Every structure is written in C-alpha cells, then in structure tokens.
C-alpha cells in the first residue's frame, strides 16, 4: 500500500527563497567576524597539533594485547576474536605452555598472534568477545607503514602497544 505524501503549500517568502538565503549569509558572516576577532579557531594543525587528549573514553583505536600485574600474557588463544572478527583481520596459532613455565597451569597461549591493520575496521568486537580480558582497543589511530608486511601487527608489537593493565580479573591465580 503506497503512502501518499502531501506536498506542503509554501508561503510566498518560502517560494522566492530570498529570506532563507539571507539567513544563511548571516550565519556565515557571524563566523567570519568571530574568526577575525580571534574569538574562534576552526582549523587544527594536524599532525603537529593533536586532538588526542580530548578523545572520549570509549574511543576505539588499534587493538592490542595486554599483560597483567604478574607479567602474564593474558591471551590463552581461544581464538574467539579470530572467529568474531568481521573483516578476518586476526590470525592466531596456539601452542601449549611448556612444562616448567611459571604459568604452566594455564596450558595454552598464542604462538603467534597477527592482526592485519589493513583489514581491521576498529569495530571492537574482539575486545567484547574476549573471555580473558586480553585484547583491548587502544586510542592509537594513526597506524601507518610503508609495506603491507609492516601493517601486520605481530604478537610482540601487540604487547608493545598494549602494555600492562592492572586490576583485571585474576582468573588463573595460584589459589584457584
């Protein structure tokens, strides 16, 4: 069933659009005057000047892996982020933690963990799905490189970006 939208009846002022034109010019002129009076800045000199300090708390930048206060790598390579990742940017190869390791009871860790930043769409699904609080989206947004290989963040790079994060749930503590 089609919906019939009635065409509005315009007044004479609306039909000749001149008042609307003047309204627009007034706004533009107001801005121009304020800039000339140095009351307002509209251009930021990026990259010399950055907006980073004003980024909101929920800003989603590059994903990174974190270690906790015990220096344990939190990722256990369950591969849920690899599964959920919409652009398939994540590739994980799991391995068993060898006997004798301090965290042997965790049993599993990533042998390699690659995120292809050319594919990543910064959606944050990996952070949301992670059952171990191991992957977080940081505020880094200027990810650049001169080759495709450089744009693939490997495990070492991911821990470098992610750093240490404290106060997370300590699921694999020694008492458990």
């Amino acid at each position: 069933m089609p919906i019939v939208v009635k065409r509005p009846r315009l007044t004479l002022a609306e039909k000749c659009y001149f008042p609307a034109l003047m309204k627009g010019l007034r706004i533009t002129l107001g801005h121009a005057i304020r800039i000339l009076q140095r009351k307002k800045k509209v251009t930021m000199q990026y990259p010399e000047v950055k907006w980073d300090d004003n980024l909101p708390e929920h800003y989603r930048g590059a994903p990174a892996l974190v270690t906790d206060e015990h220096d344990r790598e939190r990722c256990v390579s369950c591969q849920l982020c690899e599964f959920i990742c919409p652009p398939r940017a994540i590739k994980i190869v799991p391995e068993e933690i060898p006997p004798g390791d301090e965290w042997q009871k965790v049993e599993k860790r990533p042998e390699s963990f690659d995120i292809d930043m050319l594919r990543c769409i910064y959606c944050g699904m990996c952070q949301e799905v992670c059952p171990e609080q191991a992957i977080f989206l940081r505020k880094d947004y200027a990810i650049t490189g001169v080759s495709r290989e450089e744009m693939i963040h490997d495990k070492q790079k991911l821990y470098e970006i992610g750093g240490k994060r404290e106060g997370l749930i300590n699921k694999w503590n020694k008492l458990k």
Partner: protein
Amino acid sequence: MAVSKKSSEDLVNVQVDGHWIRVPKGTRMIEACKQAAAEVPHYCYHPKLTSPGNCRMCLVEMGMPPRPTPGEEAELDAEGHAKINWMPRPVIACANTVAEGMGIRTQSLLAKECRQGVMEFLLINHPLDCPICDQAGECTLQEYSVEHGNGQSRFLESKVKKPKNVDIGPRIRLDDERCVLCSRCVRFSKEVVDDDVLGFVDRGSHNTLAVHPDRKLENNYSLNTVDICPVGALTSNDFRFKMRVWFMRETKSLCTGCARGCNTLIGSREGKIYRQGPRENNKVNSAWMCDSGRMEYHRLEDPARLTDPMIKRGRTHNVVDWTEAICRAAKDLSRFKGDELAIIASGGMTNEELYLTRTLAESLEAGVVDVVKRSGSGDDYLSHSDKNPNVNGARKILKLRSPGSRLKLIHAGIAEGKIKALLVLGEDLLDIGFSEEELGGLKCMVLVHMIANPTAKMSTVVLPGAGYAEKRGSMINATGRLQRLNKAIDSPGLSREDWEILQGLNRAVDGKDEVTELVDVFGEMTSAVSIFKGLSFAGIGDLGVDVMDTGESVPLLEREAKRVRDGLIVG
C-alpha cells in the same frame, strides 16, 4: 492391565509429550523420545554401551495406566487409550524400557527442574576452562548448561581440586576437573576393546577418573574414548590446541589405512586437515575406528610432497607443464607393446582410477598388470591384516585372481630384458622388493605418486598425484561394501587427482575425448564391470552399498550384535 485396541504383538503405544506413538517392545524410553523428536539430554547414555544410569541428566516424568480392580473397566480417553496416572517421582529415560500405555513427559515442570538441578550439581566443581578446552564448541556440558542450566552459580565455597593435565596414555591427556563422571570411557574400554584400564577412585565430590597404576590407556582404540567423552576431560594429544572445532569443515570420507574402510569425518580448515574421526556406519565400523587410522592424514603432510609434473633430462628432473608431461609419458609408453610394457597399480587406488588404468592397459596393450600386496597385523576388532584399502576393487576391475602374484613375472621380465617400460601408480618400487640395478635397466618408467620417493628419482616422467583426502572416488572394503571417498582439501601445488592424470594419459594414448567428470567414469564402469551394474556414484550414498560377498565378517560388529540381542545395549 488395560490393553488398548491398537497394540499388537511387538509394538506398544507410548505417549510422548502428549502425542501417541508406536514403538517396538523393549525400546528404551530415551530412544522412544528420540523417535517422537523429543530430545532428552544425557551424558552417560550411549547407544553402543551399557546404560549404568549414573548421570541422572535424562530424568523425565513417567506415568502408567492404573491397574483396574476385578470387574472394573479401564477408563479410556477420546482416542481410546487408557488414562495415565503420572508418578510423583522422575525416572531415568536411558535405562528404562517402554511399556504399553506408558506416558512420558520431557517438558513438564518436574522434568525441567530435575535437569536444572542436575546441571547445577555438575557445574559446581567444573572449572572455567572453556577458553582453553579443546571440547569447547562440541561440549554437551556447554550446550546443556545454556539450555537447561542457571545463568549464575549459587555455589560460594571453593571448588574441589583434582588432577589436571594427566598423562594417561601415549595419545590421550586427562583433565579430572572437567570430568562429569559419566563413565562412558570406562565402559568403552571394558566392553568394546576388552582393555579394562580406566576406573573411578575416591568418593563423594572427590570421585575421580583414573588409569590403572601399572598400566596406560594405550590400546589401538583409545582415541574413541576422546570422541565419546561428552566434555573435555579426555583430549587427544594429536589434536590438542591445534584448532578450535568451530573453524573446521567436516567432510564425510573413508579411512584408507586398511581394507576395513572405516567411515570417517575429516575436519579441515583452509586446506589443512586437523583431525579425522569415525562416522557411524553399523555395517562397517559401528561408531569406532583405530588410532593408527586416525593418524593416516599425517601422510599427506609429508615434506617431500610432489607439486609439479617433472621429466628427467640426463640426471636431473625438470619441472614441465601438465600437457608436456602427459604427452611425453603417453609417447614414451606407446613405444612399447605387449610384453615390453608392465603396469604396477596399487590397492590404494579408487575404483575409478583402477578402471582408467584398465582402459589404459587395454589401449597400450600392456603385457602384465598387477597391484602390490601389502599385509600387516590386523586385530580382532576393526583393523584388517590387508593394509590396502581397495584390493577387492582391483580384483574385480583389473580381473586379478590373486593380486600381487604377477609381480614375479615383472621381476623376471625385467631381469630377462623383456620388459622395457613400466607404468607405476601410487607405489614405491624400491620399498616393495625392486632394486635400483633392476630398475636402471628400464628404458622408460612413468610414476604417478604423491611423494618424491626413491622410485620418483629413477622415473623418466613423474606425475604428482593426490592423497586420499584430496580426491573423490569409490572403494570396496574387505566385506565387499562399495563406499565413497570425498575430497576434504586441495592437493598441493599443481598436483592433480589421480583419475584426472590417468584420464589425461588415456586421452593422449587413444585420442578419444569423451569422459570429463569422475561421475562419468563411474557411469562407464557400471556397464563394463558386472558388480557395479545398476549403480550410480550418487546412489552409493554416505553409508555405501554391498556389492560383493567376500564371506568375511567384522568381529567387532558380531560382538556388538550379540550384546544387542542380549538387551545389554541399544546398538
């Protein structure tokens, strides 16, 4: 007891969730529910094993018609069935059999509360291991927890600690904290493979699965316990931490480790196989398969896999394209006729490949065609002493009375200098009694194989073939059952499925260009080979069809049939 009009000798009327169905007498309640499409959750019950009824997950509400006093008529409902008096207590559906007029409620409040209660008890000591557990994704504890469990745990005390990561056998790792004590593995070891090494020790919430202190779970069927484990307590060392199950694509195929032809499921992802397990077929392998068969897929990961067709020039092999390689092979082989040419095929080839070998042998007029015999040690369960998966196919298609007996003629022919050319299909001649000096005397040797073996080094033309999981085809097992092999992954590099190579050789030799699909090869074979008459490739189905009577039986299946007759298992 009030007997309703509809019952007959061997069928009884049962009401499942309000619907009346008729099932054979002696059917377990859980199976009757399954037939009525009412799934009853369970852990310990397995149709191939006895039912101890220890997990209590399959509790359902049950009722029976009341027994009328003498002279009293049974009260009937509108459909003519006796009224059901529901029992106040639940019963387990796995170990009880149905009776005439019985009522089962799987979705009643009582049944639901029972499941919720059992789930809560199972989960109080269960670790939060799912992110590292290989069973995650195919774990019934996970599934039922979502379906029947509580959202949160009410258990505030500390969990019971049990041994983790226990080495109980060469191929299996045990995690006791994950175990739900269903005893499937214990019963499998005891009842199916007669290797009673597993058992429960300690009591109460410290009850633990353990292996006999002086022994290991190391029989050749041990990995079946991993399959039937409903949780991640038993995991396979081979598959451990390799790949999460939800990534894998499963392909229905066959094991080619021996002549049994166990039906398998191959789990692969992005061109790599991660595991191979049994697929139920009650005419071949029941629900089991041997450990050595499971490891068969590792042969495809050989670092010496051939990826390109090659022609020997002087002392080195040069990579060429397929057209050149096939033409060269056909040209070389056509130069020799009759007794000058012999073909050594393999009992590991599919029927289609064998048929194309036969047509090739006919157009090349090859003097001798034979396959290589490969026997090993079999056992009293599934493993067969004939390690070739398709010798019966070779018998029928290549018309061999006793396969392997004509290799002597080939040895003699080469020694006399009569045989000058050899076409070798899927075999390593130096491994089966031929010597380098012997083969050095040949004018031409064409090899179709997947691995760069010593024979490949001596061959004039090397054509890279595919492994068993990289091709389609059909095979006939030891009991004469025709079954289908399916392609799980692509073969590496430029290598091709063997039937394509043979078809290429056929075309190059006789110039005909008719058959294009594997299905067409099978179609052609149905008119040329009598046992395939009236069959089609699609008609073989997932479970296969019996095409010949070899007089052989499967010892494991016979014992299983006896246990079914005795009423011990459902089967």
